[in-house]
């Protein structure tokens, strides 16, 4: 168990200086999610432009993994269609749970830094918190 595999530099950067932190006033949708196990929470607002996601912002409290994952996620989601977002959620969840064979990690970009989570089963929920909120959000679109 190597902690540095889990807490990589880029993760700490996103934790310290999160991207897209805030609330979109004229959002298409506001949604929040909570990890009942630890009380961590993420509030997400999304704004679409045509078929693609134009803006996404988040607020919340939680551990380094949940907050960094949320920050990195917002960067990757912008400009994607709902179908592409679904694929990304699927790839990311497959990576952190270690359940997806033949994973194309190119599509995940910087998110690959969170791969170490799969060796820490108790932290998988932390990494997935923001992603579950997005999943619910697009289900409502």
């Amino acid at each position, binding site marked *: *168990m190597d*902690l540095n595999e889990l807490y990589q530099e880029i993760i700490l950067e996103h934790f*310290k200086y999160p991207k897209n932190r805030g609330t979109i006033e004229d959002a298409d949708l506001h949604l929040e999610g909570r990890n009942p*196990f*630890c*009380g*961590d*929470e993420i509030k997400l607002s999304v704004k679409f432009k045509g078929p693609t996601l134009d803006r996404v912002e988040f607020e919340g409290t939680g*551990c*380094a993994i949940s907050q960094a994952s949320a920050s990195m996620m917002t960067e990757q989601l912008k400009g994607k269609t709902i179908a592409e977002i679904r694929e990304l959620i699927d790839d990311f969840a497959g990576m952190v749970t270690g359940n997806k064979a033949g994973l194309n990690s190119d599509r995940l970009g910087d998110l690959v830094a969170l791969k170490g989570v799969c060796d820490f089963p108790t932290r998988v929920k932390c990494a997935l918190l923001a992603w579950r909120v997005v999943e619910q959000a697009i289900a409502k679109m």
Partner: protein
Amino acid sequence: MEYIASKTKDTISFDAAMIRSFFPIFQHEENNGLVYLDSAATSQKPQQVIDAMTRYYQEHNANAHRGAYRLAEKATAAYEQARARVARFINSRTVEEVVFVRNATEAINFVAAGWAQKFLRAGDEILITEMEHHSNLVPWQMTAQRTGAKLRFIEFDEQGKLCLNQLDQLLSYKTKLLAITHISNALGTINPIKQIIQAAHQYGTKVLVDGAQSVPHTKVNVANLDVDFLAFSGHKMLGPMGIGVLYGKAELLQEMDPIHFGGEMISDVDYYRSTWNDLPWKFEAGTQNIAGAIGLSEAIDFLEKVGMEHIEDNDHQLTQYALEQLRAVGGLKIYGPMDDHGSAISFSLDAVHPHDLATFLDSKNVAIRSGHHCARLVMKRLQVPATARASFYLYNTKEDIDALVRALEEAKDYFAKWT
């Protein structure tokens, strides 16, 4: 017939190495060097508890209260002996006042659904505290919603002690039930339960005590406390998971409705109506956890051989030592009282999230709990999303606490680059 024949001698001297040698988990090679500081979540199990359950399945397995053959008689006797063992342990007046359930949560739910929801009406009040575990909060929220009774709360102060001065204002003849934890799992607070029960009884208020964190650690004497209901879990007191106890005064259990209906809980069954079996069996529908009851009985045997007074004394010494050592760690904040503290200590380290801290400590082989400890009201009151918690039991030593403190010092270095 003494079915539960213990292999150990009559008393076990309180020597940490000796005590640990009874717990196979510490001998297992994968757990080499494990510092287990999460007994408030669940305790480890001594070999004799595991053996007693295995022996039951290997040698005497049959359904209790059902067969007219010798094997079934043995199983029934073992189950009822386990009940008698529990009754003696908590000093209940009669064996029929001990109902086997799955855990403390189920015990509290039984009282909520079978007693409170039967008798409470709009205008009545249920009094609980802000420091309750969800298991002693959510059932009362539901009871209030279903009966129209009002749920009221005793607050706790900055030290994590109950504001007992509020008791006078909150208690009245409207208060039909006071449900309160004996020892807080999130703050470590030890509540002056006897004094509180006496105050409640002045108004005829019945008192349910959540003993999940107290029965494993201190002698709880139901007759002496004059408590009306007591709930506790076997797995936090060296017993197996899936067995717990609801103690209730016989007259209350008599008037309380069963929650589960079916086999063995009936006296007579007709097409449209049935009548209930005697106490305690009217609450025990369906096949029960006989092996679990035997395991719990064996756990009580172990606890008594060590001596509850020695266990309490060791807990107290470890807790005082831990409080002193933790106070010396810069940036560490301890929640809960500084004296008279139960053996669970909640804390946080600088701005490090308890989850990240627990992962780091685990990398140093120190197992602690992180999260809200099923006590969201406590977290709201402390204005934190979560805390880290270390908790101790009879197999822990000062060396375990030293290992925790060393790991915390290392954690400070590790997380320093994060800020």
